[in-house]
């Protein structure tokens, strides 16, 4: 990595900073002392600004940053409208989690240096996954993000957290095996690791090999992108981890993997229609099964995990359709889901700090003790369900209007069914939060727990404002989303930018 740094112009704002800066700051962590959390927040806010600045520069075409030798032989970063949009989203999300941890996390394991380093590495890995232009570096970044995620999930170091971390490690290793195998096979058959070059050469390799590589990638990435049936591990991990970590997994890591999956599909395949349809079915099944299963969950974190799976299914359903409007809506929903899930997981963190456990019974009537948190939970759930006037409604409407315009109605039916199931459990939880509790229960309110300062709520309020704002004025994001959708679907443009020839 240091070599990469030396070769790139250090002082100009280029995409490499999005990866290098977190790595650098993480490696220099002993220097920061008490200033760790403000730094984490500040760095990511800076990266967010940088991503937005870069985003403004890629309106006409992608920014290719050569690191070693010019592509297709060397290593390069491929920053276009869609990857930078996601980088912006993810850095913003990490910044908000950092702010939340800075203000709110009093538990010792969040005060440690490991937590700081791991979040930095996670962020670097995810940004790398989004920006890299070749398959091998993709694998490397997946590993960086993966390892930091396993450790984050085990950070609390009690039995539940260690179990979750170990399980996460196992499943991550399995996923890595699949991806690595696919990478090797691709290199053997096409002789290149550059994504654009693979995109040009992929059609020429034997059909059976195509299917094998495709399936290996599907399983490998599907595990990390939480698609059914490869998502069976998710509830266990989310339940064992702290909600703050789960917020990062659901809001940041999964989104990066979703992007990788669809970027590969749209870049490599000349005609993504067939694969797209299968991914749509996969997404639909993921959504319905997850929403259905969530109905019976009695633990807040598990419930949020299943809800997360459902939303990922919905996004997959939309992106798989490979049509600009629907994909733009899908990307919008991806943004909204990140915002809403961050909000919900952070509220869950607040609630868990006050309740004995995340179980339904322990949280009954919590609204009386945490009125603002409960209110924000309502807001987040409304957006998650797609109820106006919140952002989730606009993105769902956008997706469904796209489907309706194309005359395809089964996804609409599935989405509405999913939303109804989702409503059934989200509203049950809300009803529980507002249930009046008998007096003796209130009297035994645990004393001495860290009280949430009002500062801890401001990241939550920022999220709430964004959810309302995007719900009222989706036009704010419309140009960026439309451009991102076009770029994501524009295979020949992406290949041409790297290879210099149209496929």
């Amino acid at each position, binding site marked *: 990595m240091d070599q990469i740094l030396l070769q790139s112009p250090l002082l100009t704002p280029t995409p490499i900073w999005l990866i290098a800066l977190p790595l650098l700051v993480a490696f220099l962590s002993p220097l920061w002392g008490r200033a760790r959390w403000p730094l984490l927040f500040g760095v990511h806010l800076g990266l967010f600004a940088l991503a937005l600045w870069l985003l403004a520069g890629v309106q006409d075409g992608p920014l290719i940053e050569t690191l070693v030798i010019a592509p297709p032989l060397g290593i390069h970063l491929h920053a276009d409208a869609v990857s930078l949009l996601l980088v912006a989203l993810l850095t913003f999300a990490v910044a908000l989690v950092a702010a939340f941890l800075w203000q709110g996390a009093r538990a010792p394991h969040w005060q440690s240096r490991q937590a700081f380093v791991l979040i930095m590495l996670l962020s670097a890995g995810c940004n790398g996954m989004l920006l890299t232009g070749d398959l091998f570096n993709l694998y490397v970044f997946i590993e960086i993000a993966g390892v930091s995620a396993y450790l984050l999930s085990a950070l609390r170091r009690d039995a539940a957290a260690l179990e979750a971390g170990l399980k996460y490690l196992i*499943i991550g290793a*399995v996923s890595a095996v*699949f991806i690595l195998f696919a990478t090797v096979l691709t290199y053997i058959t096409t002789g290149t690791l550059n994504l654009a070059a693979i995109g040009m050469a992929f059609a020429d390799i*034997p*059909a*059976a090999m*195509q*299917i*094998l590589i*495709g*399936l*290996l990638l*599907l*399983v490998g990435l599907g*595990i990390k992108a939480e698609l*059914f*049936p*490869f998502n*069976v*591990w998710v*509830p*266990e991990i989310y339940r064992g981890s702290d909600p703050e970590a789960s917020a990062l997994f659901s809001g940041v890591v999964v989104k990066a993997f979703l992007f990788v999956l669809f970027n590969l599909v749209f870049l490599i395949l000349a005609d993504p229609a*067939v694969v797209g349809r299968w991914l749509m079915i996969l997404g639909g099944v993921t959504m319905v*099964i997850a929403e*259905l*299963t969530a*109905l*019976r969950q009695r633990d807040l974190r598990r419930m949020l995990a299943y809800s997360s799976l459902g939303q990922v299914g919905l996004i997959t359903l939309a992106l798989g359709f490979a049509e600009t*409007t629907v994909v733009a809506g899908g990307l919008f929903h991806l943004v909204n889901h990140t915002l809403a899930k961050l909000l919900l997981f952070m509220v869950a963190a607040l609630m868990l700090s006050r309740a004995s456990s995340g179980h339904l019974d322990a949280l009954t009537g919590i609204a009386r003790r945490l009125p603002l948190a409960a209110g924000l939970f309502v807001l987040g759930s*409304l957006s998650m369900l797609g*109820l*106006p*006037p919140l952002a989730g*409604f*606009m993105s769902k*409407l*956008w997706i*469904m*209007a796209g*489907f*309706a*315009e194309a005359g395809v*109605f089964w996804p*609409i*039916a599935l989405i*509405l069914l999913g*939303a*109804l199931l989702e*409503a*059934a459990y989200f*509203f*049950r939880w*809300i*009803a529980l939060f*507002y249930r*009046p509790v008998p007096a003796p229960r209130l009297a035994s309110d645990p004393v001495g727990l860290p009280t949430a300062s009002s500062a801890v709520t401001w990241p939550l309020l920022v999220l709430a404002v964004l959810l309302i704002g995007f719900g009222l*004025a*989706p*036009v704010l994001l*419309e140009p960026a989303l439309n451009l991102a959708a076009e770029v994501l679907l524009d295979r020949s443009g992406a290949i041409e930018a790297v290879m210099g020839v149209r496929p």
Partner: protein
Amino acid sequence: MRLFLRVLSLMVVVTPAVTWFAWDGALVWPLFGGATLSFDVTPLASFFLLLLAMGAPLAALPMLRKEEPDWQLALFALLVLGMQGLLLAQDLVGFFIGWEIMTWSSWLLIVRSPRTDAGTAASYILFNLSAAFLLLAGLLGVYSLTGSFAIQALVDLTLAQGLVLVLLFGAAFLIKIGTLPLHLWIPRSYDQAPEPVTVVLSALVSKMGVYGLLLMLILFPEMPGRWFGDWLNGPLSGYGLAWIGVITSIVATFKAIAQDDMKRLLAYSSIGQLGYVTTAIGVGGALGISGALYHALVHTLVSLLLFISFAGIIAQTGQRRFNDLGELIYRMPISFFGVLIGIIALAGMPPLPGFASKFLIFVALIEAQWILLFAAVILSSAAAFLYCYKLIYAPFLGQANSPEARVAREAPWPYLIPQIILMGMLVGLGMFPGMGTALADPVLAALGLAPLDGPSLGTLATPYGGYDGVTLMLVFGIAFALVTALFYMLRGQLRRAGSRQDLSFAGEVPTPDQPLHYGAGMGRELRRIPLIGWILARSSSGFFSGLAERVERLAEHSSRLYPSQPWRWVQSFVVVFAVLLTWGLVRGGGL
């Protein structure tokens, strides 16, 4: 902060009135993809906006009491905004946004009540969201056909397209109105919601379903013509809708008679009254639509009045069952008059306006020559007398049946002021029944129907004849005054009975501890009538709870798909991978 919130909420609550008086020009708000939200006042919306403008401030008064929590008024303000939004919307997305804001804010109002149980909360939100999602599916269908969300006439639909869209929209609005068998969420939620909230649910929120149903007349102008049946003298779709409405009102009326809880009874009565409105919309034509609008207006006033009166009783006595009250006429006289005026209007007795709206519906049915429907409407209308009597007898007359009823005081002013205003409005509207049709006439014109155009506000005129409200009121009033005066001119004196137990009681003298209140008995013997016994023994709740149970069981099955042991995860991945690979290779071809 508290004061600021209250003042702000109150300002929002009066916005419908401001909009109604002072709206000029449309408002446009950009959405994505070139679509826009636009807001304007159409004649139809204006009528319902008037209901909102009258109802919202009156319903807000009881919420201003110190005993009521702050969030109630704030959420109510949100609810009013939602309803106003859906009325003003000129496109289906705006309508849906308002509809949903209304749905979830009203749910939050209900769910924060200490009496609401989990089942009620779930049924309220699931029924209403089902309605909303059907609506959403319908509006997406419209979008796929026209490429626009605007509320406009859909022409040249094929039969299948028309049928699907009509069913989607129709089912959505019928759930909101609460027609059978989709009414289950209403009685329990009206019963368990906080008292001031029930007022809003019954008087205002339910009317939005009526508005939606009328909107369908604009959306599907060809529907009646398409399914015209000569032998029916009218459209088949309308005939079906009318029967749905009337069966709803009959069953709801019988259920209402059998209730022993005041708010539950009123909830069923509310379902029944909206059944008439549905019937009237089904009949269609100038008389039918005008009857539907008129009845919606009257029901808004009546349910405001009755629910507020009963809210006052519950607040003062803490009792909500008929058996536990009695004799309040001496302790709560203003509330008594409120309920009296309310039930006279509810029962549709002249000279109050409940009769005017029913008269229009009757005449519409006669014009359409749907005589069997007419008889069915009469059945529920006559049966309604029974529960109306129960409403006035059990709390106010008879013998006090609980300690609270013996010491209750008159309800506080926040309950009485709206009651007095509403009584005045009802009597005024009864005297000038033409006012209602005058309000409905612009809507008729907008729907392309001939307005009724009464000669004066005092007259309700139809092509089949009408009546003069002023004369009627004067004749009755003078007769009443003269009879009373003459009675006093007769020789002899009036002696007040010695005690409440000084009764002609089968040769015995009852003691104060003897239960002499007949509230529970009322309606019990009805079960012996075969038809009513049959209806009361049935319920669709079994179907829906069965459905919920099925889904839960399905969820249990699906949760087995998520094991907790890592080796089973890996095993499943490998198996799925192998199966897919085999299948892909056998199928042949690349990606």
